[in-house]
Structures are given as structure tokens and as C-alpha cells.
């Protein structure tokens, strides 16, 4: 059986699954329940200076799929609204009771050296394993000059990270905001400041919906709304890309990454790890289903690793990075086309509607209502995958490689590229 135990910036964890800094890690009661369920660690919900902020009522907005399936949701909560000392005391006690579990403390104080100098020793005294700098929170706190307001300015990131390394001996993880144009810039700044690792992504600026009766964005607080931080499985693709960018860039590739963003199952976790993460943080899936999902996360990942012959996380860490490249390096002589397996096709015609209306008119419809058949016109098919995307039957449309007999040719070397490079 594969070993899920792993080490992240010198911190040992029984598995790569931590709960992200969020409501599930706001207090000892929740954290203890998480540890009882089997979570490897938690990033304690962000501590700040007293007096603690006050939260509003009505805090989460949801983006549903058509069948009340939660695609994503957002929140307008602030950092912990409990007094600092209560949190510090609870962290101390829980860490003492659960020595084999990781507790990272998330921090957010004003961008002034003294503020950090004051809080860091208090955190270190709890026995916590490390700190995470919340430079990502996109709502509320930036209006007070904290959170994403810091995370969007690389110089501030570097400066604050340096203070943390200076006034504290704990490992420092810098949590990055996705609400920027190039995530590599803040990552590089964190590295320059001495960060031990980065974690990403924090939540994304969002309005999940508008109540068309009251004309208020959701979540609505007494008839008014504000943008909140978007999370859940809908943000996973964005997070995967950002993680891979940091892992691929030579300037930041050495930074360990804690992957965050829509991790809902073991497969998501494995994908994050193959693209650069050393462990993952989960929040939304736990908020939707409770802590019990940890069982499947561990079990599923372990089983998959066994099948693949991986004995620990490091065996497949960054395994997809060599295959993640720039567009210009893709093989333009590669061809794949769709194949419709008539035995599994239910003749819904979704592929036809999609291809005929919006793509390449590469699907042929024959027969009448009672006896219709859809097939691919090979010469017209560009291998875009849209038919397979729209198909409701998992095994009806297959994308198959076509041997063009031509050797690899990228845009970089393509004759049509006026700026081509010679091979």
C-alpha cells in the first residue's frame, strides 16, 4: 500500500490533505473534528490584530449547476472574528493534543513592520508548525490595506515575507491571490523575500448571482451585496494553470507549492501534485460534504498510487510538468479525429448540433427520426473534441490518433511562421 505520509518544507504530515484557512478551521472544535476524521493538517483560519473584525450576516453566494449541483460558491467573510488570545490558546492546546497533525497559522496584519513583529512571537509560542501569509483575501480586508491589497503588489509581498523570516523561525508559506495578471510575479517576490513555499490559489473576485427581484448581488446583506471570494470545483482549472506556471518558470520552479483551488476528490489532488503541488489544501468540498470526504481522498489516492506503482507522493510529483509547455512547442503535424461508436450512441444528435452550428460541419446525419445515425466526416474533423464534450454517453465518442506520417513540427519551426527559428 502506497505511503501517503509526506514532508512539506520540513513539516511532516500523515497525508497530503490539509484543510485550507477558512471557516472549517476557525476554532478548536472544528479542527479537532477534522483531525478525528483523519485530515493531515489544517491552516488555522487567519488571525489578525485585536480587535477582531465583525462579520455580516448572509455570507455565502452560490453558483449552481442546473440540478442544484454546486459548481462554485463565494464568501464575503473576513478573517477570524474571535479575539486573538482565544485562537492562540486553542492552537496551543490542539497542537499539544495532536502532535502528529500539522497546524499552520494563517496571518494577516497591517503592512507595518511593528504589527508583524508583535504577532509572530505569539504564534511561534503556540507550537504551530508554520505560518501562512494571507495575501489573497479579495474582499473586505483589502479595503483596510491587507489581504489581496498586499498580494497584488510584489514589493509588499517581498517586504512582509522578509519581516516574517526575520522575526520568526517558523517556515513561511505565502498564500497568493489569483486576482492578478501573472501569478509568477508575486511568487518570485515571495521567493526573494525568503519564503519557504507558496500556496495558491486564494479565492477569485466574484459575484455569484443577482437577485432579479431586489436587484441585489448575492449574498445580499440587507439589500446590498459586494464581490466575494469564489471557490469550489469551478476554480480548479484556473488553479491548476497557476500552479503549473510557477512550477514551470525557472525563476520560481524551486518554490515548494501547496495546491489550493477546487480540490474535491483524490483525482483532483493527484492532478495538482503532477503539476507542481507537494500537498493540497481543501475547503469547499469539506464545507459541502463535511470532513468525512477525507476517507475517499486518502483511499482513492492510495489505491491509484498502488496501481501506478508509486510508493510515495514524490514519485509522481511534477510528473506532468515536462508535458506542460507553451503553445508554440505543440506538434502541428499531430492529428486526431472523432469516432462515434454506434453501439453506444443513443442518437441524441447533440454532437451534430454542436459541430454543425458552431464548429466544422464534420458530423454526418443520416436516416430519419426512427433510424438515424451520426458519423464523423474524417476529412472535415479537426479533432477539436467538442462532440465528445457535448456527448452525454461516456463511451460513445472516442478521439483517435491518426498517423499522418509526418514528423514533429511546432509553430516555432513552422514554414508559415515569419519569425520561425531554424531547427
Amino acid at each position: 500500500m502506497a505511503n501517503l505520509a509526506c514532508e512539506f518544507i520540513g513539516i511532516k504530515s500523515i497525508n497530503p490533505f490539509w484543510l485550507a484557512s477558512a471557516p472549517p478551521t476557525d476554532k478548536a472544535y472544528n479542527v479537532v473534528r477534522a483531525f478525528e476524521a483523519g485530515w493531515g493538517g489544517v491552516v488555522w483560519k487567519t488571525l489578525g490584530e485585536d480587535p477582531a473584525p465583525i462579520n455580516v450576516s448572509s455570507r455565502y453566494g452560490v453558483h449552481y449547476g442546473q440540478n442544484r449541483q454546486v459548481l462554485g460558491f463565494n464568501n464575503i467573510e473576513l478573517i477570524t472574528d474571535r479575539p486573538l488570545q482565544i485562537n492562540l490558546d486553542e492552537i496551543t492546546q490542539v497542537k499539544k493534543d495532536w502532535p502528529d497533525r500539522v497546524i499552520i497559522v494563517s496571518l494577516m496584519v497591517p503592512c507595518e513592520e511593528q504589527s508583524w513583529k508583535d504577532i509572530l512571537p505569539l504564534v511561534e509560542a503556540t507550537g504551530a508548525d508554520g505560518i501562512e501569509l494571507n495575501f489573497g483575501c479579495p474582499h473586505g480586508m483589502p479595503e483596510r490595506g491587507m489581504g489581496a491589497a498586499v498580494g497584488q503588489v510584489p514589493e509588499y509581498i517581498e517586504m512582509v515575507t522578509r519581516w516574517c523570516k526575520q522575526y520568526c523561525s517558523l517556515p513561511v508559506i505565502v498564500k497568493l491571490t489569483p486576482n492578478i495578471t501573472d501569478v509568477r510575479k508575486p511568487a518570485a517576490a515571495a521567493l526573494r523575500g525568503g519564503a519557504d513555499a507558496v500556496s495558491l490559489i486564494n479565492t477569485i473576485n466574484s459575484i455569484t448571482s443577482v437577485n432579479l427581484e431586489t436587484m441585489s448581488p448575492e449574498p445580499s446583506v440587507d439589500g446590498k451585496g459586494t464581490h466575494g471570494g469564489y471557490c469550489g470545483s469551478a476554480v480548479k482549472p484556473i488553479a491548476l494553470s497557476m500552479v503549473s506556471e510557477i512550477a514551470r518558470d525557472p525563476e520560481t520552479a524551486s518554490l515548494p507549492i501547496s495546491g489550493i483551488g477546487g480540490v474535491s476528490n483524490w483525482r483532483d489532488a493527484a492532478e495538482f501534485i503532477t503539476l507542481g503541488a507537494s500537498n493540497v489544501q481543501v475547503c469547499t468540498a469539506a464545507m459541502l460534504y463535511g470532513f468525512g470526504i477525507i476517507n475517499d481522498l486518502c483511499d482513492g489516492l492510495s489505491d491509484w498510487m498502488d496501481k501506478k506503482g508509486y510508493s510515495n507522493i514524490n514519485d509522481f510529483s511534477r510528473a506532468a510538468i515536462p508535458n506542460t509547455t507553451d503553445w508554440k512547442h505543440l506538434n502541428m503535424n499531430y492529428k486526431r479525429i472523432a469516432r462515434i461508436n454506434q453501439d453506444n450512441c443513443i442518437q441524441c444528435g447533440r454532437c451534430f448540433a454542436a459541430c454543425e452550428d458552431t464548429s466544422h460541419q464534420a458530423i454526418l446525419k443520416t436516416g430519419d427520426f426512427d433510424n438515424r445515425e451520426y458519423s464523423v466526416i474524417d476529412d472535415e474533423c479537426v479533432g477539436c473534441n467538442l462532440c465528445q464534450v457535448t456527448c452525454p454517453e461516456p463511451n460513445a465518442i472516442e478521439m483517435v490518433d491518426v498517423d499522418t506520417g509526418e514528423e514533429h513540427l511546432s509553430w516555432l519551426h513552422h514554414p508559415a511562421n515569419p519569425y520561425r527559428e531554424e531547427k
Partner: protein
Amino acid sequence: MSFTHEIKSNRLLEDEITDNFHDISPPLTDKQVLIESERCLFCYDAPCINACPTDIDVPLFIRKINTENYHGAAKEILEKNILGGSCARVCPTETLCQQACVRNTEHDEPVAIGKLQRFAVDHLDTTQPYPFDRAASTGKHVAIVGAGPAGLSCAHRLARDGHKVTIYEAAAKSGGLNEYGIALYKLVDDYAQKEIDFVLQIGGIDIKYQHALGKDVNLNQLRENHDAVFLSIGMGNVNALNIPGEQYPNVEDAVAYVSELRQTNNLASLAVGKNIIVIGAGMTAIDIAVQSKKLGAENVTIVYRRNQSAMGASEHEQELAYKNGVSFVFNAQPKQIVGDENGISTMEFIRTQQSSNGKLQCKDEIISMPCDVVFKAIGQQLDSSPFGNDNPPALDQRGRIAVNEQFQTSLDKVFAGGDCINGKDLVVEAVDHGNKAALAIHQQLQQD
């Protein structure tokens, strides 16, 4: 001969009967609708549209339901089928749209189109203006004979086109089969009348009740006094068994009993036999058998001369009968009914078998079954007597009114549709006939 009649009312308590006759397929809840509507794949050239005689754009109305555009969904349905509400309840969807659904595979089941259609029509927003406009008056006047589904749909289309319509209805109420012939538990809460009220809101439609063709009005007069005539008189005659004993009391037409059942204010007061035999294999046979059980009959047996696979009633309907405790006897052909002027005691059948060439052969075996009531449900015929002998419309080989593709009869400006012409005898098909005949009538009247 001596036997005791066991035909009596109040076989069950009134409450029990009320329970038994509740809506057999209750409306979906909002949550069920959300889940079910999500299952529709929004097929291209969806087979369900083709399977619907009225061409309702099923995927489109389901999509509208899914986006909570209920009013739009209802309008989409009613535009094609003004009786979309009753069709949603009485259509044998398992042999129409739902049979065509691409989800109808061994791994899956079809989208519940009928139930979704009912939900949509039930959620038409009545605070909004009536969803159909009436064109400016054309000055033309069309007579329609029969206020059943075909007549009502034809009337509504014609009224929308600006024609004046008078419907001559033999009965005291309109609705035809929906009012008098559908099993009570399929169409509850006086739905047929509520639907007709909605149809008539278009304006320009006058219904003359208890005006029977051949008695109170005649076809020649109607042709003289109107610009066109649409005949939707249904089928007035019930097929006979043509066996000895058929003339005895308590050998009844299923259709007549269902009509009585639908019109009574007190179901418990209906006289119900103890041992009931139903002859037939179609929907009417199932309807009368199930309703007899629901009224408290002890033994109800459907007897059919062929085997089960030849039954006209769908598997869904047969299942309904089994669930309600109805028994089936197959391969038994009626021979005679034993009784006298006071009633009946037994019915005799000849055992049959299917020969290899598909023909039905009688075996040398008689089956005798006790009964106090026999219901005949072996089909109906057009009653052509109301046309009289003075220039009646031509009939086809099945004895129904012959029509061309425009639903025109052999008589100039006389059209026909619904069960009185050849077809599958479905409400939804009658609506389609009415729609199409209205279009043909409208086109002709415009040329005048």
C-alpha cells in the same frame, strides 16, 4: 335456473372510494421537476417531437421548465396543442414521446415528458394576458359538430384566425372523451371543464348544448347556414359480441358505464357487480376493469380471445390492471352468456390457440366463468345514422368518414377529424386533426 344477483352499491365506504379515485399520477413537485427536466438532453431533431401527433417541441419546453420559465414552457405547449394539459394526463406517453426518448435504453429510462408537460401547463401564469390573440373578424362562420378534443382544437384555431365558430354538441357538457370517457383517476378535479373554459377565452366560439346531429340539427342545414362545417362526432356505436345471451340485463357497454361513473356525484352509489368479466384488450377494457376494482368489485377478469402480446393496451396499462388486482384470461373467445331476463350467472368461452400462420383457431375446450356483470369493450364504430340518407359524407372501409390529406370529406366545405375518421383514436391525435382541419378550412375560406 337460479342464481343470486350480487350487484349492489356501497361495496366500499365513501372514503375508501374517494381514496381509490385519487389522481393516479400526481403532479411532480418543484424538486422532481428540476431533476427530471435536467435529464432532457435537448436532442437535435428530437425524436419525441416527431412522436407527438401535435409536434410539441418537447426539448424546448423542457428547457424552459429547467430555467424556471414555466409560463414560456406552457405557451410553447399550448401553441401546438391547446389541450396540452389533458393530453399530458391522458396520453399513452409510453407509446408516443417517451417511447421515442433517446434515454429509453436498457441502462436508462425515458424523460417523464408527460409529467413535465402537465407541470408546465399547470404553471401557465394566469395573471398574464391570455396567450393567444384573435385576428380581426373575417365575417366567416364555421359550424363544428361535437365539442370533443378535435372540435375544440379546431374551434380554437379558427377563432384565432378571426372566424366565428358555433359548436353543436349533443351532450349537456363539452369535452367529449375527456369529459365522458377517460378513466376518472386519469383526469381529476373536473379538469376537462377547466380546460374548456381556457379554450373558450379566445372568444368567438359559441357552444349549443344538447344539439344532436340528425335530431336537433342536420348536416344539410349546417352547410347552408355556415361557410364550412367540421365534423368531430366521435364514435357513437359500441361493437356487439354477437353471441347468445348478450341481450340480458347487466351485459353492458363499458363506455356507457365509464360515462355514468364520470358524471355521478356519488361514486359509492354506483351499482357494482361481485364477479365482473370484461371482454376486450384495449385501453377501455383496462379502464373499466380497474375502475370496477376501485369501486369494490371482488373479482374482475379481462378476457381476450388472443394472447397477451396481441393486446392493444400498452404494457404500462396492463401493469396498472395487475396492480389493481385485475385478472387476465387469454385465448378465450366468447361463446355465450348464461342468464335470463333477471340477470346473468356465467359466461362461456371457447379456448383458442394461435396457429403457426397467425390465425386464431378454436380448440375443443369450453371455459365457464361465473359472472354477474359483463362489460363489452371490444371497440366502437361510427354511428352514421345522424347523416341520414340525403347526401351523407362518404365513408371509408372501416366505416368511418373518409377524408383527404386536408381532412376534407367527400362533401364540399365539410371537413372531419377525431375518432370519426380513421386513426389511432387518441385524444392527442384528435387535437392534431382539429388543428390541421382548421388550417385547411382557413385556407379555403381565405380563397372565397
